[in-house]
């Protein structure tokens, strides 16, 4: 469908608003904590309690942090959200597609789909899942860095899948801990930069 200048410009304004709201790095920090928690699960099974609690309370806690650190600096905008059903359908379809592609690819390359093979290639599967989320973010924000992180995540998954670990779960554990640490570190750098770059706007008045 041909897009007019106006539609393109409005899309750019929307992407800028989205990009601005993401520049505090808090989302990356929370994603990093979640991935590290998931990685730790394979070593300490009890962390499943932490993962569930974190997933439940993270949005509320994230919003509290944004109210304290982000909105007083750059303001607040409630962005349009995709309908939950459409989002869920999109995530489910993408996950299904990734699994089917992986099954077909593994069958073509290795000639079977054993559980061992599946465990071994789970970092690539996880990398492909993350790639979907990051491409979505890149499209919403028009920030090409998300594409770079997506490629990095996918390549890291591929490398850890090719490397032969002794234990079945080591590959995915290392992948989740590594990517979680990367996201956490990246988010922290962005957050500190954000605090320095944007001082609290106390004198702003609309009167």
């Amino acid at each position, binding site marked *: 469908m041909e897009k007019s200048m106006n539609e393109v*410009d409005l899309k750019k304004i929307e992407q*800028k*608003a989205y990009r601005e709201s993401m520049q505090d790095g808090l989302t990356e920090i929370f994603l990093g904590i979640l991935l590290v928690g998931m990685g730790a699960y394979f070593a300490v099974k009890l962390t499943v309690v932490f993962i569930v609690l974190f997933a439940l309370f993270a949005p509320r806690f994230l919003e509290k942090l944004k109210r304290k650190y982000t909105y007083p600096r*750059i303001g607040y*905008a409630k*962005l349009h959200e995709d309908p939950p059903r459409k989002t869920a359908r999109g995530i489910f379809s993408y996950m299904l597609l990734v699994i089917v592609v992986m099954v077909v690819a593994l069958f073509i390359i290795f000639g079977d789909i054993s559980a061992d093979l599946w465990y071994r290639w789970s970092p690539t599967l996880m990398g492909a899942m993350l790639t979907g989320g990051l491409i979505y973010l890149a499209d919403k924000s028009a920030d090409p860095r998300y594409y770079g992180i997506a490629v990095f995540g996918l390549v890291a998954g591929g490398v850890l899948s090719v490397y032969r670990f002794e234990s079945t779960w080591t590959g995915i554990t290392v992948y989740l801990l590594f990517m979680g640490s990367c996201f956490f570190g990246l988010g922290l750098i962005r957050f500190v930069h954000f605090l320095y770059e944007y001082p609290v706007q106390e004198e*702003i*008045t*609309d*009167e």
Partner: protein
Amino acid sequence: MSEDGDFEPIADINRLIHEPARLMILAHLYVVESADFLFLMRQTGLTGGNLSSHMSKLEEAGYIKVDKEFVGKKPHTMLSLTSEGRTAFREYVQNMKQVLNGLSET
């Protein structure tokens, strides 16, 4: 101007929206559900006084809804586009397209 030299699309342009600052405010509010005063100031590059004055005109026209509240002891202003404002903005965009298309054909 349309093909038959009709000036009607130009006459139909909403002058309240046509002002650049107000057009920016409406465009930014069009792509979000709501935004606060600080966010709009940063996005549009307007000063507080300028934004406030244009905000009042748009509110008087019924194009935007302004909600004032207190967060702690500080005043906080949230702005959102009304359905009337959304329609007016869309119509403005349509009219401008017609005008610009007409100009490019000459």
